């Protein structure tokens, strides 16, 4: 007897050891595996946690209705999940404010808002989609719409949102959100990706005319040289491949007259003087010593300029909001001008128009309700959107005619000189962001970055051309441009 007991005691001990070790093992497994697994698990948990909650809500409602399980109950609120990218704090607050207002205004639909940080967005959404827990509607930028529509990831909105709301859009914006004869998204704003910000006081100190911003790339670099001193750099712009990938589109357009692919997406179109000029501009600017060797911030963040470490910065129109909200003392000294062009021709493109929209997920179970809210928020009363443009300090622009009309009677908006300058001198010459896959853009920007770091520009471009053509062949991209296919 004795030994058996001993054995059992030993075995229970062993059992617990094994349990613990197996847990440790699985834990190791997930952390070792890679980012996806552990993060996926987390986000999947989050997502399912949320839906479990909403499910429970519905469940109790249904139970209250004598156990009859679902849909036919008229008074039951439909819950739709809404994921918004994390933007400026003012935008996040605006989303929350109007979601609450909408939820209070009626008893049919309950919108649940979740704000997701940008760097977690792609992973979180992928994981939710894989687990069939994607939100009903979410933010998407213009560049993603055509491809998402092609893959049925988002639904057409023609039957979900009143056609008059689409008629209110500017014609070029209509094109941004439609594929074929269908609208796949409702736009929220447009913003040009490149505007020049410069310090008037430093211009004067360096003997430059603060009312005469540079018109050509050469002038920009020359001014930069005069402005560079200890602790202050002459120029800040995108300088890593991921930032350059999108911030240089406007310059590519302006110098070459087109972007990196032929219209039918069958091959790269970058071995020309326009593209050579763009690559050389960045390489010259970097090598002239007026830019920091390491970017002081990511392209969309103008904080180093606001902190006085930079005398000229190229940034999107959104930087106006950041300057006015975070660096109030500096605003008087800041000059705003269109981004210089290669030749000084003010009508050449230097910026692309990007911006955000709301889309309804392809698998959403309540597309009608989701679209109702989108129509309310983005396409409804002009007040809602004016509130948004006000909180963003007029650094973004309306895709809707009626909102612009209403804003004319708003004194703050009508007297804003920066807003007027961008509306008159930047936006009319801006082009839409490209919709081709990111791999193409990053190949071009990798060429730019390698030229900045010393590779021969011609060789860098040749490599980019080869990479793009390889990518086209491998992913069978030729002839798949959804915009050209019509």
């Amino acid at each position, binding site marked *: 007897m004795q030994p*058996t007991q001993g*054995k*059992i005691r030993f*075995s229970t001990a*062993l*059992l617990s050891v*094994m*349990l613990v*070790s*197996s*847990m440790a*093992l*699985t834990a190791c*497994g*997930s952390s*070792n*595996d*890679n*980012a*996806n697994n552990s993060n996926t698990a987390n986000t999947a948990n989050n997502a399912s946690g949320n839906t479990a909650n909403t499910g429970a809500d519905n469940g109790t409602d249904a139970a209250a209705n004598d156990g009859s399980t679902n849909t036919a109950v008229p008074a039951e609120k439909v819950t739709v999940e809404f994921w918004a990218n994390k933007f400026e704090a003012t935008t996040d607050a605006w989303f929350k404010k109007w979601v609450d207002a909408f939820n209070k205004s009626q008893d049919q639909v309950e919108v649940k808002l979740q704000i997701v940080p940008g760097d977690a967005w*792609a*992973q979180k959404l*992928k994981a939710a*989609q*894989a687990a*069939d827990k*994607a939100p009903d509607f979410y933010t998407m930028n213009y560049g993603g719409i055509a*491809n998402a529509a092609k*893959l*049925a*990831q988002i639904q057409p909105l023609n039957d979900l949102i009143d056609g008059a709301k689409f008629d209110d859009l500017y014609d070029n914006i209509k094109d941004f959100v439609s594929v074929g004869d269908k609208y796949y998204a409702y736009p929220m704003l447009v913003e040009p990706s490149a505007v020049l910000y410069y310090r008037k006081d430093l211009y004067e100190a360096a003997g430059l005319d603060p009312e005469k911003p540079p018109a050509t790339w050469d002038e920009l670099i020359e001014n930069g040289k005069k402005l560079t001193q200890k*602790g202050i750099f002459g120029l800040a712009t995108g*300088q*890593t*491949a*991921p930032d350059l990938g999108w911030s240089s589109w406007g310059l590519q357009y302006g110098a070459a007259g087109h972007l990196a692919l032929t219209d039918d997406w069958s091959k790269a179109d970058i071995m020309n003087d326009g593209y050579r000029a763009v690559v050389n501009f960045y390489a010259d600017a970097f090598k002239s010593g007026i830019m*920091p*060797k*390491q*970017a*002081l911030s990511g392209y969309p963040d103008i904080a180093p300029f606001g902190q006085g*470490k930079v005398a000229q910065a190229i940034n999107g129109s959104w930087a106006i909001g950041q300057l006015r909200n975070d660096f109030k003392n500096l605003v008087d000294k800041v000059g705003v001008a269109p981004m210089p062009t290669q030749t000084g021709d003010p009508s050449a493109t230097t910026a692309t128009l990007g911006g955000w929209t709301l889309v309804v997920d*392809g*698998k959403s179970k309540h597309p009608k309700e989701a679209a109702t809210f989108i129509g309310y928020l983005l396409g409804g009363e002009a007040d809602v959107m004016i509130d948004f443009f006000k909180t963003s300090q007029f650094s973004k622009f309306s895709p809707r005619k009626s909102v612009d009309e209403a804003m004319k009677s708003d004194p703050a908006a009508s007297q804003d000189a920066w807003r007027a300058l961008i509306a008159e001198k930047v936006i009319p010459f801006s082009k839409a962001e490209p919709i081709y896959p*990111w*791999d193409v853009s990053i190949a071009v920007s*990798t060429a730019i*970055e*390698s030229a900045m*770091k010393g590779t021969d520009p011609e060789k860098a471009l040749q490599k980019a051309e080869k*990479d793009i053509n*390889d990518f086209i062949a*491998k992913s069978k991209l030729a002839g798949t441009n959804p915009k050209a296919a019509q």
Partner: protein
Amino acid sequence: MFKKNYRQDNGVAYLLLAPIVILLTIFVVIPFFYSLKVSFYNWSFYQPSVFVGFDNFKFVLEDDLFLNSVWVGIKFTLMVVPASMVVSFLFANVIKGMRRGSASFVKTSIYIPTIISGIVASVIFVFIYDYMGGLANYVLGWFGSEPRAWLADVKTALPSIAVPAIWLGFGLTTLIMLAGLHDIPESYYEAADLEGAGPWQKMLYITVPLMKNIVLYLTVTGFTGAISQYELSLVMTGGGPLDTTTTPNLYILNHFRNDVMVGNSIAASLLLFVVLGSISAIIFKVLNSEKAIDG
């Protein structure tokens, strides 16, 4: 009697094995075979998946960036593993010679980086490497040197990321080394003293050979740990400049985030698994593990 006991043992054994077998099945075996299947498809969440045969694998193998990322991973490992071995070996020897109280103080202090997450470490080191006002450039400034763009320069980016990796790992490695050192019977050293051996000879003929299994273990775990590192480059450089810090797992993560179809990143994971497995096998082969003489 014997037979009965025998049967009972079997039952208990299966019972004991059950939890780990079930957990391994759920978390390792099933996902592995599922991913094997998915790697042959264009896997989309919104449309029916399409069977594409070996296309995903071909896609990955023909991608210069993937091969580059494996090479980056190997270079990174070659910086991290030997360096952390040497540093921990030195630390372990120093600690072994210390008095009890101070030894435990040092042990605790060097273990602290181990419990700091990779993300926090990355953020700390981003500040250290900051171009304007970072500690590293501040120290360089004492010697009148120009500030360096540690993380943005093609030459220094990868070594700059290897430093926090070593810092994160060496506490644990040191403790394991120390345990190994304590395991070597003192009598060996006493005998060597009698024979008139100096410190170098003792180290070369007693310590190093008896640490072989520890070194083997640390090499294999260090290798897999270092080559699957991705948080450091994700946070500190985002894989740049010019992909010089894109490790294999960061490559996979980027594809998972950006690609419309998922097959590509899964194929890359499986290929990485093959690479890791074969290199580990080579290490085992070269550094044959043997039972210590002392047992």
